[in-house]
Every structure is written in structure tokens, then in C-alpha cells.
């Protein structure tokens, strides 16, 4: 079963053409990692998938039935099914951790407050944040904030999760705890598309790695194929550069 199908999507900002007829397919329980130079359009692609950006041409289907790119799509309905976590956490600073997490379930899914709270506390417990429920985001470390952001997205019980360089803003010592959270989600079978510069991690968790270049997926394959024996010259150059 296909969770997301991206077909020939184009997207430009002004005269700058970022996505140039990109194709991508993600199956159920699959973890797909997007790699590519800074500015290659990873974030743009992720944002098109949950309708934060509108495409210029092409089609994006969720579960073969919901067309994100149709002219009259209810984007709120799309976003109920697709979670996203950003590089800069974007927690709501005026709300406690628990309120951050229960806002969506209460206001969008219309869960009773008690049920939303229970769901949030269960999730916080699983990600080692049980004692942080009543803290405000600015009292947490970067790694803790990012794990709260993950829990906030998870509380909506999305069928697909998008991670946009969620460790790039973190102190190196804190990257591990966030990556462990992603591993945990993979082990539960959540379908994930993530952009990252953590190549070791990509090799470890990815079912498939896609290299974005020139607005298309230039090369894709298993981590062994992409990191071991890349076919494209551009892929090899990128990997050499990022390994330093």
C-alpha cells in the first residue's frame, strides 16, 4: 500500500525553480530519508506533502485517495493525517508542555480534555519526559524541546510523519536522544519521511535513501547502495563533501 505518492511535482519561488518534476513513492511502514545539498528542496518537498506549500504542477496522493494538490482540498484534513516536526521545534512558548501537546487533539480531533491529557502523558512517559508535563518550553534543553515537538505531532496519531532536519539545531551531545526517539517510532511501524544531514543515522534507520539534486530524485536505493556504491557522480561528490 502506498502512503504517499508524489508525481511530477514542480515548485518555484519567483524565478527560482526548486522542484522540477519530482517523483517519490512511500509505502506503509517505510522510512525514507531525503539527503541532498542545502537548498536542494528537501524542506520544500516535505512542506508540499502536508500542504504548507502549494505546488505549481503535479500531484500528491495520500493513501491513494486524498489528493493534497487538488484545487479545493481541505488542507486541515490533510494535516490531521500528516504530522511534521521542524528543525527549530516551534513549540508554543506561552503554553506548558502538556498544553502544547493536547491543543491539537482537543481542538482538531475534539477529544475530551481528560482523554487528550491521558494520551499526552502516556506519550511523554514513553519518550522520557514524564516529569516535564507542566514545564514551559523555554525551561527545557533543545533535545527535550524537540522530543516534545515529536510527541505533539504524534498525539494527533498521524499515519505519516515528516521530519525536517530535526537534529540540525541541536548541540551534538543532544542529537542522540532525539534520534533514539525516531528509532522508537520506526520500531512501531510508523511511516516516516525525513530530511537529514546525519548520514550515520540515515544508514542505520533508512529503508530507502533518496538523493535530491537539480529538483529531482537523482538517485535512490537502500542505504548500502547509496552510501556503498553510488552510481551517480553527483551523489558521490555530495557524499564526499558531507563526510568532510
Amino acid at each position, binding site marked *: 500500500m502506498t502512503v504517499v505518492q508524489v508525481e511530477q511535482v514542480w515548485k518555484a519561488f519567483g524565478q527560482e525553480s526548486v522542484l522540477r518534476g519530482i517523483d517519490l513513492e512511500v509505502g506503509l511502514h517505510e522510512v525514507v530519508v531525503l539527503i541532498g545539498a542545502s537548498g536542494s528542496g528537501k524542506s520544500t518537498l516535505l512542506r508540499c506533502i502536508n500542504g504548507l506549500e502549494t505546488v505549481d504542477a503535479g500531484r500528491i496522493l495520500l493513501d491513494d485517495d486524498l489528493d493534497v494538490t487538488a484545487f479545493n482540498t481541505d488542507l486541515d484534513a490533510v494535516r490531521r493525517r500528516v504530522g511534521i516536526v521542524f528543525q527549530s521545534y516551534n513549540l*508554543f512558548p506561552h503554553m506548558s508542555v502538556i498544553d502544547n501537546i493536547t491543543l491539537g487533539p482537543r481542538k482538531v480531533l475534539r477529544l475530551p480534555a481528560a482523554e487528550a491529557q491521558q494520551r499526552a502523558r502516556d506519550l511523554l512517559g514513553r519518550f522520557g519526559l514524564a516529569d516535564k508535563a507542566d514545564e514551559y518550553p523555554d525551561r527545557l534543553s533543545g533535545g527535550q524541546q524537540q522530543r516534545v515537538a515529536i510527541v505533539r505531532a504524534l498525539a494527533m496519531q498521524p499515519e505519516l510523519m515528516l521530519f525536517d532536519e530535526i537534529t540540525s539545531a541541536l548541540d551534538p551531545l543532544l542529537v542522540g536522544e532525539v534520534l533514539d526517539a525516531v528509532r522508537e517510532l520506526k520500531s512501531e511501524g510508523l511511516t516516516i519521511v525525513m530530511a537529514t544531514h546525519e548520514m550515520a543515522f540515515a544508514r542505520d534507520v533508512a529503508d530507502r535513501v533518496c538523493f535530491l539534486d537539480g529538483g529531482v530524485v537523482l538517485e535512490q536505493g537502500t542505504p548500502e547502495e547509496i552510501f556503498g556504491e553510488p552510481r551517480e557522480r553527483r551523489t558521490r561528490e555530495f557524499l564526499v563533501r558531507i563526510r568532510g
Partner: protein
Amino acid sequence: MTEPGGASVVAARAGSTPYVDPARVRYRQRKAWRDAAIGIVSLLVTVAVVAFIVVRTPGWAVVQETFFSPEAFAESFPGLIEAFWLNIRIFLIAEPLILIVGLSVALVRRLKRPIFLPLRIVATIYVDVFRGVPTLLVILLLGFGIPALQLQGAPDSVLFWGVVALVLSYGAYVAEVFRAGIDSVHPSQRMAARSLGLSSWQTNRYVVVPQAVRNVTPPLLNDFISLQKDTALVSVLGPIEVLRRAQIDASFTFNYTPYVAAACLFIALTIPMTRFADWLQERQRRRRGPGASV
């Protein structure tokens, strides 16, 4: 351990208590006492010198009799307090209405859908007009103008129209303050809320507006303070609020003490508010982090 204070260093290392060199503790205490003493002596000397100069100035007796007469004060004060209650009521009615008008106008100006274009135009014209016209002029125009029309069903109380004029005039200012507050919330907050599936309205209601209000509380308090004073402008329409009362008293006795007394009443009302605004501003500054105390 033979060095002075050695035992407490060891104790501090073992636990988690802070350690300060005892010599430094004594120095800090001495400095605190000295600073306090210097401040108090300096203040007393200054007050004494200024008082001496003022009292010795020729004409002081006349000034005192005209502006600070205890008898005139005692005579007018009860009436002034009663009249001041009207100012307070005007303020208490106008302020919530101003907040509602201001926030609504600010939100309307942020609406994007084409269907709301007429509303957006009205809101923009409203702000442009009422920010440009002096409050006093609006009060005269509405307070005398509308009752003169003798419209069916329109209230003919000048006080009512005076309050409406204050609300319209201040509403335009406060709308701009709120708009700045809404713009000060980073777009990534809106993006995060929308990506949870919240509608545009819910995003405003739960994420943007609460942060915007927090960011503009100090400037809003300044507008409150200004409004407390401007309740006196309604006096031009005739209601006996505190300024009008003072004017009447002064014109009977040719003594200006009632004005001074009225001024004291306003000050007594605004000082707590000003201190509160200062405190809030200081707290926000501190929250922004290190560097604030340099």
C-alpha cells in the same frame, strides 16, 4: 586545613551550597551599609536645601495661598472625590470596549479572504481617520453633534457620546498596538499550528493572539494611563467630572487649590498603573536573557 574559612570550603565542595570568601562577605556588607547611608544623607540634604530656597523665595506665601491652601483643599476635596468617581466610571466602561474594538480591528485588517475586502477597507479608513483627529475634536463632534440631530432612538446623553468618542479615538490607537503585536509573533508559530490541523481562526485564537497580547501589554498599559487622564476631556460636554468640578470651585473662590487637588487625584490613580507597567516591562526585558543587567 589551616587557611581561613577552610572548613566551609570543604563543606561547600562536599554539598551543593555556594561558597563565598568570608572577607568578601564582610566587604559586601560594609559596602551595602555605606551605600544606604550615603543615599539617605544625600536625599535629606537636598530636600532641606530645596525647601529652604523655596520658602525663602519672595512670593512663596502668595503661591502657597493660591495653589496649596489647606482651607480651600478641605472645602473642595469631598466634592472632587465624588466627581472623580465619574471619571473612574468612564474609564471602566471605555477601557474594555476599547480593547474589544482595537483587537477586532487589528484582526480584521489581517483577514486574507477576498470576501472580507470591504471590512478590511472600513477598518483601514477607521484607523487612518481616528488616529489623525484630536480626541477632543471627536468628543465635541459626537457629544454636541449627534444629540443635535435629534435622531429617533439615538441616546441624547452627552455622557454616552463622550464615552463613544473616547472609545473610537483610543480604539484606533490600540488597534495599531495589537497589529504590531500580531506581527511580532514569528510566522513559524502559525505554521506549526496550521500543521497540527488547526484552522486559521483557531490558530489566531489559541496561538497568535495570546502571544501578541503578551508582547504588547506594556504599551497597552501606557494607553490605559493616557485614557485615565483623557476622561477629563469629557468635561467640555458639561458632565460634572473632576476637572469640571475643580473649575467650578476655582471660579467661585479665585483659588487654584482645587485644580491641584484634582491633579493629585489623577496622580494617585496613574502611579500604581505606571509602576505596574514598569515592572512588566522590566520582567520582559529580563526574560530576554543575559545582557539585560549590563
